């Protein structure tokens, strides 16, 4: 197929999205990842997002790969190249293709192409799969490789990088590599021989991914936790958190090889989330770096134990990979709707440290840092990720080895107790920073033991109903929380010349916001952008709000939860805050952010 000639348009290079519409459970994930990896290997910035239903097999699923020479990784709402493999979503897929776009479809789907403003190419999927010689039980599976080959030919994906992608995927196992690659090659060849390119989309090798890796947030979080020395994790399966503990199970044996040949950690699948947080809290109390991972429903169930951990001052790390709530909600859609609940989780006055990673790299970083913070402050730490960050493929800066030694916080062992001149008290604010010293079970010093509890206690951990004792312990907890502000990860601020307005956001919306800021700059509306990395907020946030006329708080929930928290934290300046929320379960796009801000600005 001679490229470029039949089209009068200018070529569109490395700047479009490819969406594959298929049936879940059909094994298309390997094909999609192969395309993604091949593009990445070509040095082109890419991101991959899976939009899947809450079932296991047979319903429509879409995988979208964004190719962006500018390095934009956010979701776009537009689909330039659509690959239609599913009769059930065929009409919708066809309608979703942009004018001038590409529509590749399985020719066994006998539905009419009702548009003439696109380039439609029929693919002989079944035929090529049959001809592949794949055993019949694998035929449906390799059928997905057909579109890899044809797409590769149409847009010009390098076949070598495709081979490398397969090699990676199949861990260099030659048999499956060859089986799949042969199908791709055959499809590619078929396209060369049979298709006439009528569209402008193509890829060209770049050099923009060399210093990057590609990973999903859940894997990154698990790896970070491993570098943070995780010793105990109890968990209960829930979408989209499951792959986080499953990655612990996968990677711990690889990365944590003790010379004894034995294990320095334990992972327990609990019977539910009440037990998962219970076990993790017990382990944290015992002095292990302990964590759990869950999503909204699990957070709800963890409320009581979180209160106990807060009040007994037990370090424990909870990853909340958010999905759309309330209730069971949309288990396979993304959201930032648990922020308020996590921040205040528990009855009575409770407040928790919340970390807000905004990239896969930060998932890794907070994977280890969360333990340092939890143990330093002796309190639960929530890390809020979401489905989009946790389960999708992101191009990201490589993981950095921790730049500080592990901070185990204030722990007294036998020899430490021996050196003390005054009696030790579990809840005594010896250093005036609100953080007491703790001992751990197994400490054999006769003064080491104490009885932990969720009931009122004095500085020596004795039961107390005394009003003054209660007040003083509650106030010390508050002091500890206030003192956390300066030691938590600082917000990241991107400034632009002449910006009078600002944006505050957190988490997985970062790529969309950054991209939107570029667009707004082009539109003549320069904005500064503060990305929050933790709650409670630090002084920088105050200053940021103070130094802007209006500050847009962009988040993916209905009620503007971050905006509410900032309002409480900054009552003096809260009238500058404007809440912009996006809550349909799909990741926010740069265009949405841009339009929302422009609409407000023109009011």
């Amino acid at each position, binding site marked *: 197929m001679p490229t470029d000639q039949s089209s009068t348009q200018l070529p569109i290079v490395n700047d479009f999205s490819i969406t594959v519409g298929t049936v879940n459970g059909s094994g298309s994930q390997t094909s999609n990842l192969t395309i993604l990896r091949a593009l990445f290997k070509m040095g082109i910035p890419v991101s991959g997002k899976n939009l899947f239903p809450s079932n296991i097999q047979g319903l429509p699923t879409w995988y979208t790969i964004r190719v962006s020479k500018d390095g934009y990784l956010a979701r776009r709402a537009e689909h330039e190249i659509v690959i239609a493999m599913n009769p059930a979503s065929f009409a919708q897929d066809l309608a979703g293709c942009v004018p001038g776009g590409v529509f590749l479809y399985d020719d066994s789907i006998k539905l009419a192409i009702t548009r003439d403003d696109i380039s439609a190419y029929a693919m002989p999927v079944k035929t090529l799969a049959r001809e592949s010689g794949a055993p019949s039980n694998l035929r449906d599976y390799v059928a997905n490789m057909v579109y890899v080959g044809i797409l590769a030919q149409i847009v010009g994906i390098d076949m070598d990088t495709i081979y490398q992608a397969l090699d990676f995927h199949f861990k260099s196992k030659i048999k499956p590599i060859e089986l799949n690659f042969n199908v791709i090659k055959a499809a590619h060849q078929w396209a060369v021989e049979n298709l006439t390119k009528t569209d402008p989309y193509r890829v060209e090798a770049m050099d923009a991914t060399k210093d990057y890796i590609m990973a999903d947030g859940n894997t990154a979080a698990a790896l970070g936790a491993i570098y943070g020395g995780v010793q105990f994790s109890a968990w209960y399966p829930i979408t989209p958190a499951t792959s986080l503990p499953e990655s612990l199970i996968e990677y711990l044996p690889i*990365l944590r090889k*003790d010379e004894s040949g034995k294990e*320095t950690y334990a992972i327990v699948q609990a019977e539910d989330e009440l037990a998962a947080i219970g076990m993790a809290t017990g382990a*944290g109390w015992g002095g*292990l770096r302990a964590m759990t991972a869950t999503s909204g429903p699990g957070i709800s169930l963890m409320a009581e134990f979180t209160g*106990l951990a807060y009040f007994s001052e037990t370090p424990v790390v909870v990853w909340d990979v958010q999905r759309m709530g309330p209730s069971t909600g949309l288990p396979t859609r993304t959201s930032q709707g648990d922020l308020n609940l996590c921040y205040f989780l528990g009855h009575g006055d409770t407040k928790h440290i919340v970390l807000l990673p905004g990239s896969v790299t930060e998932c890794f970083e907070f994977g280890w840092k969360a333990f340092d913070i939890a143990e330093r402050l002796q309190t639960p730490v929530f890390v809020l990720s979401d489905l989009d960050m946790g389960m999708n493929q992101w191009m990201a800066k490589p*993981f950095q080895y921790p730049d500080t030694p*592990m901070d185990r916080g204030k722990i007294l062992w036998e020899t430490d107790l021996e050196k003390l001149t005054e009696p030790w008290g579990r809840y005594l604010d010896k250093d005036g920073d609100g953080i007491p010293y703790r001992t751990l079970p*197994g400490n054999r010093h006769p003064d080491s*033991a104490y009885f932990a509890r969720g009931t009122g206690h004095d500085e020596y951990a004795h039961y107390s109903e005394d009003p003054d004792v209660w007040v003083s312990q509650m106030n010390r907890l508050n002091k500890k929380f206030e003192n956390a502000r300066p030691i938590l990860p600082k917000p990241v601020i991107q400034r632009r010349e002449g910006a009078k307005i600002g944006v505050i956001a957190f988490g997985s919306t970062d790529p969309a916001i950054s991209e939107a800021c570029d667009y707004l700059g082009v539109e003549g509306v320069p904005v500064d952008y503060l990305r929050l990395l933790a709650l409670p907020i630090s002084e920088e946030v105050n200053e940021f709000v103070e130094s802007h006329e209006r500050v847009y708080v962009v988040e993916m929930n209905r009620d503007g939860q971050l905006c509410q928290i900032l309002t409480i934290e900054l009552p003096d300046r809260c009238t500058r805050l404007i809440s912009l929320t996006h809550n349909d379960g799909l990741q926010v796009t740069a265009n949405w952010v841009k339009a929302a801000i422009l609409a407000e600005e023109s009011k």
Partner: protein
Amino acid sequence: MSRQVQVNLANLTKSDYRGAQSTLCQGCGHNSIASQIIAACYELNIVPENLVKFSGIGCSSKSPTYFLGRSFGFNGLHGRMPSLATGALFADTSLLSMGISGDGDTASIGMGQFKHIMRRNVPMVYIVENNGVYGLTKGQFSATAEEGLSLKKQGANPYMPVDIVWEAVVAKSSFVARSFAGDPKQVKELIKAAMSHKGIAILDIISPCVTFNNQDASHHSYTWGKEHEVALHELSYVPPAEDILVDYKEGETIEVEMHDGSQVVLRKLENDYDPTDRAGILCMLEEANRMGELITGLIYINPGQKSLFEMYNLVDEPLNRLTEERLRPAKETITELNAMMF
């Protein structure tokens, strides 16, 4: 000769095993169980620092403060002692552990965690101080209250009771016993045996609530217990490396060898009873329930069942003493790791 305070082999006096002054009601069964825990630990020469205590919420769950004041402990949440303990015990698997719960704490709100800690065979002496009632909230039915029991303000209990022992046997708990706070000697010997067991040891101890559920006809009263207790056997605990002192006739006793080398000697009473035959036990319990008997003693034991920590191949040192070098992968690995993330 001046009066000397008696010490045990650990060189500790009985009062080294005491805790704070009890704030439970006078005569409460839980107090008498606490005394037997103190006595058993003293006689077993346990160093208090080597043991860790857990409990849920309730009068029963308060009692860990009233014994072993030198042991670590955690009084957790209502019904959630099992999960808290499971996690904590990973910190240092060389510690002995004891959990105290109530019938409400275990069989009402705590049923799920109770069943699941047994599935995992977590090494812990798990005592249910069973009074058929919620003591601390002033006298409502717990899940072990018998059908038809009447309590002030509550009327008559319409629901069927949970039988802790039965639940434990079916859940394949590796050590199941029942006793009665009014039978302190048996309580003590069972605690000793339980402390030598390497997996979970469930002790269902009928422990009358004198304030809210001690009417003679109540199945958890002193009177009822005294009148209906049927001990399966006379039980003695023989520490490791000690010989069995009394000579029993061949066939008169069953000896169970524990993993630490100690022995539990069961001298048969009227019943011919094999505490390793689960099916037989279930039949016996069903029959006893029909007869209204309160069967006590060591009901089931499987000393060989894999304990939680045998399921995990953990390093020998306590996990909570491992240093950064053992826990954080070496710096070099990060490059490899990133290479895997393409």
